[in-house]
């Protein structure tokens, strides 16, 4: 039995063989199994794309048509007012364009075993991830004009939440502002210039600067939200910082996800970026209730990551990589490309589709691809 499977292992993809193995009864005769495998094999080879088939075109249409039915919307998280996520068509465009700056960065942080059960504990961990600036933990910041000093009142409740003492904050401030004297008075900090002639505008600038002094948490994480996913609790964040989150010991490093494809490329490599493109595109299409075959998305992701970095499907990305001048010119900004090509003396081999359409020649796809050799009978 096993040798029969082994024989077909070369011919059929692993997944199909596994599927056959699970579906056929265990006491099947050898001849019957052989017949099944042969039938599956025939079906499989008729399903394979033929040489010269324009898979890119089919893929573009297969994603494009359902794309027209997508809605323009953003999805809001219930319970958290300011956390919304780009979905639908805008998100799809964003991914396929290969934008380096996406509109809503998000992370899904899975936690390791003992940490992912109690809501209290997860909430505490979530809060510790959030980037805290000085302005987030103060009740007021006022300038004393008479004595030209800055008085910062700290929020004691918030301080206990993130487990920081006023003295520690004073230390951070001291590092940031050299040339200023700092005084800690219970929960208030008083900053005064060491030089006598500090004017009002100087102290005002100091106040603005002091607001965005980094106190704790992970940089870039703007909001956190513990969410139940299956039988565990995960943390969803607005803003991303994959590199630093991966260093933390309570997160499940194998499953942490960011929706920023460029960040994934940087931290985890090009193959991970490809996987992320597939995952993100599929998520959008699936959320809209549309049905696009995975293979089309895979083709798009493969094309985008061909060159070693993520390139968008636009004139700055994969179109720029095309070797043919006419093909590039036919897409967008034709004059620019033709002028550039004539200056540098570029050569067009006419190997692709569009330039041959322009020149009224056979396009090298399908039956236009192979050349024919005929034996001519000598007269």
């Amino acid at each position, binding site marked *: 039995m096993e040798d029969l499977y082994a024989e077909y292992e070369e011919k059929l*993809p692993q*997944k199909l063989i596994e599927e056959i193995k699970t579906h056929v009864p265990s006491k099947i005769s050898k001849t019957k199994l052989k017949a099944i495998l042969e039938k599956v094999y025939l079906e499989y080879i008729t399903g394979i794309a033929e040489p010269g088939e324009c898979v890119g075109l089919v893929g573009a249409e297969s994603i494009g048509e359902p794309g027209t039915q997508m809605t323009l919307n953003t999805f809001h998280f219930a319970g958290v007012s300011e956390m919304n996520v780009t979905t639908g068509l805008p998100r799809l465009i964003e991914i396929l364009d290969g934008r380096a700056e996406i509109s809503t960065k998000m992370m899904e942080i899975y936690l390791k075993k003992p940490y992912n059960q109690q809501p209290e504990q997860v909430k505490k961990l979530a809060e510790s991830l959030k980037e805290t600036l000085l302005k987030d933990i103060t009740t007021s910041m006022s300038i004393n004009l008479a004595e030209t000093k800055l008085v910062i009142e700290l929020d004691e409740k918030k301080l206990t939440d993130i487990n920081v003492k006023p003295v520690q904050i004073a230390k951070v401030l001291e590092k940031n502002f050299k040339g200023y004297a700092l005084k800690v008075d219970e929960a208030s900090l008083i900053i005064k210039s060491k030089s006598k002639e500090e004017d009002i505008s100087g102290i005002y600038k100091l106040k603005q600067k002091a607001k965005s002094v980094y106190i704790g948490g992970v940089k870039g994480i703007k909001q956190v939200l513990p969410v139940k996913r299956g039988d565990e609790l995960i943390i969803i964040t607005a803003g991303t910082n994959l590199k630093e989150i991966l260093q933390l010991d309570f997160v499940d490093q194998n499953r942490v996800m960011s929706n920023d494809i460029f960040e994934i490329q940087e931290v985890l*490599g090009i193959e991970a970026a490809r*996987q992320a493109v597939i*995952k993100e595109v599929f998520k959008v299409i699936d959320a809209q209730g549309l049905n696009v075959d995975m293979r089309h998305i895979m083709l798009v992701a493969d094309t985008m990551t061909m060159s070693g970095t993520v390139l968008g499907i636009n004139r700055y990305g994969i179109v720029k990589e095309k070797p043919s001048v006419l093909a590039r010119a036919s897409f967008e900004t034709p004059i620019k490309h033709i002028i550039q090509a004539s200056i540098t003396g570029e050569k067009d081999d006419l190997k692709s589709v569009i330039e041959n359409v322009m020149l009224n020649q056979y396009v090298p796809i399908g039956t236009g691809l192979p050349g024919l050799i005929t034996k001519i009978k000598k007269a």
Partner: protein
Amino acid sequence: MSYVKNHNLVPKHAKLSEKDKKQLLEQYHITIADLPKIFTDDPAIQELDVKPGDVIKISRNSTTAGEVFFYRAVIEGV
């Protein structure tokens, strides 16, 4: 950097030997320039000791076909 290797998004990367590389190129009638690329500074191949001109064999876990092999040629990182 072990977290890169273990992450769910990262498939297994392996370096092809010179013999396997030659065989691959012959099998598909291609040159090394025809393969998709990967940069030398890609985080996933830092432990493999690669140089430009090597070929990386990637064992992807495809949802449609099971384990699939994919190849990338190493090029100088920018």
